[in-house]
């Protein structure tokens, strides 16, 4: 009927993967921790905590922001990693990097085993299963005090020198550099991952679960894969915490840790890797200074912030910035 259509067709860009080149602003972002390291030498312990939690948030963002799995029990993997690394060191193997690898593998195995329970079911079922697994591990670690130290925590974690050269000091210098290096490596990995065809198919699952099988994407397999990867990263984050603080407390499995983590990711903007890191940084710094004033007020304001973010600032800090930028662009034209 309309044979002339091809002639007036708008030239369309060939479908291609998002560009993977590092932008200047990204490089600037990664210079911030380096600057902080030298500018605030007394805050390196806090800094390393932020970096570790940032890695943990990154792992949650992969499944929450990219694959759309709402998890209320991500601390399970963090805790597994922390206890594996801690127990290794307690029982005579204090080499940090191999401990990190073992903890990552343990997290991956545990993540793979539980992924089958998580990928099936509705959002509510997922919420309950992840929550249940987290609470189960908390109870298990609490009861198995002959292994984990129970409520007193696992003490006697003694780490060897990092690379045989740098010992873990009280000022957190080694911890900071070590955490930053691990975070950066895994960030590069995640960044590559989410812009790969695999990462794009995850977004497809998030946007429309029903259509993905129709274009030949095996939804369950993809979700299992990303869940396992995310669990491994969470395990590594837990191991980092255990190694740098040389202590593992029962709270690594706690529900507040999972909930806080989700808040950080949503606050920063889920589905954006930098959002997870920015959200973590803002949350941790605010927590550090405000909860000293009064822990109860902190909780109130945190709750209010959540409600406001959900109602008025969808997409968190990152989303708000994007909207503002678009508005400014719109008013200019």
């Amino acid at each position, binding site marked *: 009927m309309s044979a002339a259509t091809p002639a007036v067709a708008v030239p369309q860009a060939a479908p291609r993967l998002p560009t993977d080149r590092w932008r200047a602003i990204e490089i600037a972002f990664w210079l911030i921790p380096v600057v902080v390291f030298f500018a605030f030498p007394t805050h390196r312990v806090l800094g390393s905590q932020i970096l570790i939690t940032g890695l943990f948030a990154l792992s949650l963002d992969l499944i929450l922001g990219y694959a759309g799995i709402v998890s209320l029990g991500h601390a399970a993997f963090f805790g597994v990693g922390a206890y594996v690394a801690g127990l290794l060191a307690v029982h005579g193997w204090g080499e940090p990097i191999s401990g990190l690898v073992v903890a990552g593998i343990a997290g991956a195995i545990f993540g793979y085993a539980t992924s089958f329970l998580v990928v099936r079911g509705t959002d509510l079922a997922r919420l309950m*299963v992840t929550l249940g697994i987290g609470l189960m591990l908390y109870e298990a670690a609490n009861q198995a005090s002959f292994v984990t130290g129970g409520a007193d925590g696992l003490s006697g974690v003694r780490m060897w020198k990092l690379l045989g050269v740098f010992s873990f000091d009280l000022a957190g210098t080694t911890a900071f550099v070590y955490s930053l290096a691990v975070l950066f490596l895994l960030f590069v990995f995640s960044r590559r991952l989410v812009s790969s065809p695999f990462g794009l198919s995850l977004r497809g699952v998030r946007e429309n679960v029903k259509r993905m099988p129709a274009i030949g994407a095996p939804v369950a397999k993809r979700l299992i894969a990303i869940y396992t990867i995310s669990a491994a990263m969470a395990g590594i984050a837990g191991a980092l915490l255990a190694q740098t603080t040389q202590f593992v407390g029962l709270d690594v499995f706690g529900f507040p840790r999972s909930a806080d983590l989700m808040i950080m990711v949503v606050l920063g903007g889920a589905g954006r890797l930098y959002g997870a890191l920015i959200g973590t940084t803002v949350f941790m710094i605010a927590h550090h200074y405000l909860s000293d004033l009064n822990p109860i007020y902190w909780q109130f304001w945190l709750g209010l912030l959540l409600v406001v973010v959900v109602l008025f600032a969808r997409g968190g800090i990152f989303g708000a910035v994007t909207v503002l930028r678009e508005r400014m662009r719109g008013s200019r034209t």
Partner: protein
Amino acid sequence: MIGNLIGVLFDGVAYGSLLFVISIGLSVTMGLMNFVNLAHGAFAMLGGYACVMLMTRAGVPFLATLPVAFLVPAAAGIVLERTLYQRLYKATHLDQVMFSIGLVFMSVAAATYFFGPSQQPVRLPDFLRGQVHVFGLDLGAYRLFLIAVVVVITTVLTLLLVKTRFGAQVRASVDNAVAAAGLGIDVNRVFGVTFALGSGLAGLGGGLGIDVLGLDPTFPLKYMVYFLLVVAIGGAGTIKGGLVAAMILGICDVAGKYYVPQIGSFIIYFLMVALMIVFPAGLYGRRT
């Protein structure tokens, strides 16, 4: 041994009844609006505090405070539903979870600010204290009272849903909100009234439960899992499912803590994961 078993069963049923009263509102609202509301326990807590404050500050007897424990959270529920919840019915589950966790945090902090962090006392009237002899068994009078209340509430709710015009509107909206709206049912109003009713029942449960569950500012967090479990296991939107799930949970929890205290609450979490795997949509849930 047998006496023991019956005692445990009885306590479990009483505990389950309480869970049912508190959670049934959550079940109906979740089935109605598909809204994941983690803040349901906050309404129960509000009812509990309304009850305690009337008793300790104004000297009102326990039974007379219960209607207030229903009305205050119901009023709070309708205000919050109209102003905030309503905006999020179409939002993603993640947004709903974050929003309701935010409400929980605020309620915990507010309760601590106004009432202090300690457990609140409750003074039961004399005839509800102590034991009652029934068929040679010693049964707690208050637990018997709880079970009786739940029987009444379940009957009234079922009649309300099955026999009345409003009930028919609720059922139609649960089944298909769009078609119901097309038939001239004011779905929006149905949502609001149901939410208020559910919040009120939660508050009533909170008031009734002070003696069994305790009442302190962490209440909404401590029992959040239990309320969600009732809904998730029973299947959202059904009274029968909620009742069965609440009983299973109550009995298993009490029996687990009585017979194998060393593994404590492990049983309940295990049960929850196992049931969620076998019945992802709940025992009586509709598969979508």
